[in-house]
């Protein structure tokens, strides 16, 4: 299956190619101020966005609904009802009558045993959109990742808040709910590449988030993990891979993205799956498909359109980006006053081809999906855009390779002046120093890893710290379940030598050894 969806030059084209009527994105990594018009208003799609309250560039979620197929009745940002547009929403505009209250659930304590983690803060990172489609309330969510231990209370409290919001929707308002998005939890050992290693299975449920998730999911809780329902035994049903480890090649991943539905919706659901072959992000798309009509027990047929109350909708809710001041028509745009210049006639032809070579409007897609997690898209867009500078980049890094091969010690040039050398002719010593220099500048031959005896792969430290920029070699094999992370992190009996081994060597060390060798061969 080859999708060329990321070759589309407009957001509308991308959404169309994805082929769904309602499309949810997580990690928009954008902000309202930087959202291009094309991404906010893609043709017939109604766009809904939630961005972090404080200037971000991280997180952020979006829902697009194809206006020809489904228009929401109501839409709101966040879980608590605190995030309000100006002027605030009227009761009719709100999805719910009641919202979670801080005392409705027992918050997860932080390190100091304190529980006041800030109820409002949970909603301030642009992680949730709640959109009412009549038949169901769609919640598009990007649950926090546990980036550090300090974030665990935030993560857990976000889950508890989500659960409480949905509990109210189900119990108090008798609504059906679909939760879509990145929950950031592997539900069972089957959903994690390492889940079935003995050491992992034993402690799998010890993590409070996993325990919480298990209790929220059917049969313990109200939410049905529909995609797993359709593929109960399927292994490797992963939705997210570590890009730094190139883990997608070997499907060394985890399933942390879900479509969860309440039981009342199950009859509507025709199918669900992941689209692991659709590249462009460190996650893959997942989807469910609903029946167009349903035969009820009393023999009546009900159409999905009617169940979604599409006849009652005349226009999308106020949260829709098309009503934003900047797009609503209140603010005019310059192009209505100034005509577009076709081509600059004053310019000599030598300049214009440069402009023509770039892909039309590649700029706007670049923006759009650098924002979401479609990374391939971003890189392809950039390579189109950055063509000339890419050259500069590579030449720059080549240069760097030459001058920055790890600082060699002077000793490696001047060492071992054996006593008889003093009589050697001047020319030969000149030659020698020339050799030494050229040795210094020859590319390093990669060392071989200890387990497989295969040439290792060169990496550069990107992490901030004293080693930043230093180069090192590690085993070139891909990662997989049981790959050797080192004695501290991997039980010896669980190491799978098919995958990456524990080989590590600084490039500077490799070079030093190479120099010593060449020095030795000279002697």
């Amino acid at each position: 299956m080859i999708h060329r969806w990321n070759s589309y030059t407009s957001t509308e084209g991308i959404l169309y190619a994805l082929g769904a009527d309602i499309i949810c994105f997580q990690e928009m990594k954008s902000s309202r101020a930087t959202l291009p018009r094309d991404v906010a208003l893609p043709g017939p799609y109604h766009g809904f966005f939630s961005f972090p309250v404080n200037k971000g560039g991280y997180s952020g979620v979006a829902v697009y609904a194809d206006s020809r197929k489904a228009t929401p009745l109501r839409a709101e940002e966040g879980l608590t009802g605190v995030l309000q547009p100006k002027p605030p929403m009227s009761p009719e505009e709100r999805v719910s009558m009641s919202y979670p209250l801080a005392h409705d659930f027992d918050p997860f304590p932080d390190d100091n045993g304190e529980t006041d983690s800030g109820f409002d803060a949970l909603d301030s990172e642009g992680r949730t959109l709640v959109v009412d489609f009549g038949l169901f309330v769609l919640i598009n969510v990007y649950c926090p990742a546990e980036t550090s231990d300090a974030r665990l209370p935030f993560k857990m409290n976000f889950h508890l808040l989500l659960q409480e919001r949905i509990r109210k929707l189900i119990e108090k308002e008798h609504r059906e709910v679909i939760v879509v998005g990145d929950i950031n939890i592997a539900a069972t050992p089957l959903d994690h590449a390492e889940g079935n290693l003995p050491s992992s299975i034993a402690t799998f449920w010890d993590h409070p988030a996993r325990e919480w998730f298990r209790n929220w999911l059917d049969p313990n809780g109200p939410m049905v993990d529909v995609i797993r329902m359709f593929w109960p035994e399927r292994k490797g049903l992963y939705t997210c891979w570590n890009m730094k480890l190139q883990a997608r090649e070997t499907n060394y991943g985890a399933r942390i993205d879900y479509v969860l539905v309440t039981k009342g919706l199950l009859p509507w659901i025709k199918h669900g799956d992941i689209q692991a072959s659709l590249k462009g992000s460190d996650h893959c798309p997942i989807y469910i498909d609903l029946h167009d009509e349903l035969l009820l027990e009393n023999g009546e047929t009900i159409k999905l359109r009617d169940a979604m109350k599409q006849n009652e909708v005349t226009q999308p809710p106020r949260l829709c980006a098309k009503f934003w001041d900047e797009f609503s028509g209140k603010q005019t745009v310059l192009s209505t006053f100034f005509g577009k210049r076709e081509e600059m006639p004053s310019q000599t032809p030598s300049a214009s081809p440069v402009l023509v070579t770039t892909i039309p409007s590649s700029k706007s897609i670049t923006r759009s999906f650098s924002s979401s997690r479609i990374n391939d898209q971003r890189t392809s867009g950039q390579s189109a855009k950055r063509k000339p500078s890419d050259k500069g980049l590579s030449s720059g890094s080549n240069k760097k390779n030459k001058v920055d091969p790890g600082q060699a010690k002077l000793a490696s040039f001047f060492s071992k002046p054996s006593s008889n050398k003093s009589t050697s002719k001047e020319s030969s010593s000149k030659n020698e120093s020339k050799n030494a220099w050229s040795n210094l500048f020859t590319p390093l031959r990669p060392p071989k890893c200890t387990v497989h005896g295969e040439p290792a792969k060169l990496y550069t430290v990107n992490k901030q710290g004293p080693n930043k920029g230093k180069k090192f070699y590690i085993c070139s094999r891909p990662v997989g379940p049981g790959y050797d992370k080192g004695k501290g992190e991997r039980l010896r009996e669980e190491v799978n030598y098919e995958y990456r081994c524990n080989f590590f060597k600084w490039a500077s060390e490799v070079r030093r050894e190479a120099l010593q060798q060449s020095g030795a061969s000279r002697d």
Partner: protein
Amino acid sequence: MLEARLAEAAILKRLLDSIKELVTDANFECNEEGINLQAMDNSHVALVSVKLSASGFKKYRCDRPLPLGVNLGSFTKVLKCAKDDDVCIIKAADDADILSLTYEARNSDRIAEYEMKLMDIDADTLNIPDTDYDARVSMPSAEFTRIVRDLSQLGESVRIEVSKEGVRFISDGEAANGNILLRQTDDDAPPEGVTIEMNQHVNLTFSLKYLVNFAKSSTLSNVVQLMLSNDVPLLVSYDFNQGHIRYYLAPKIGDE
């Protein structure tokens, strides 16, 4: 190739400061007459147009038109490395993928060289029609900065009204409103005073956040000119020795 020698780096630093919030990437179009830049913000509401004329440089040479696509954030960083009174030399080869900048210190032998990657930018260029504006207001740029900054505390937009009385800036916020009237000053001409030329009464509404942005250019010139006609974008113009920076801002409608 391009080689331009600017007596003081300060002018470029200030220019960048006044456009970098509005646009992220832009083409500096260089030709024998000088360097021009035209760029629109993301939402296509504001446009900035910069001209640095060849005569404003100590030395200027550009053999054929050359677009220099620049990331303004990176450019700002590179320019931060220059002292305000450094001599700044900009160089680029014909099919350049880098722009080189040299800063020569005024009172010492320090010479710093920087190189910045260029990029291909396919920006829409707009044709700005010559317009006879109904009203032209000149005022001290510091006064304009203060007005938009003050009013931006209250509301999102400002109504600018030019009448026989003078020029009035009005903002209605949710919690507070305010208006500022400037009359023509009879004895003072700009830069200290205010002059108003008017053919017709003008009443237009604009988004304040853009105007606050524009006002950053007050470091380039102590006079600002506002030119307005009904139903036409506002022109905010700052002229300085080497050239000008002009902003166009599309009006808001139906906000009254």
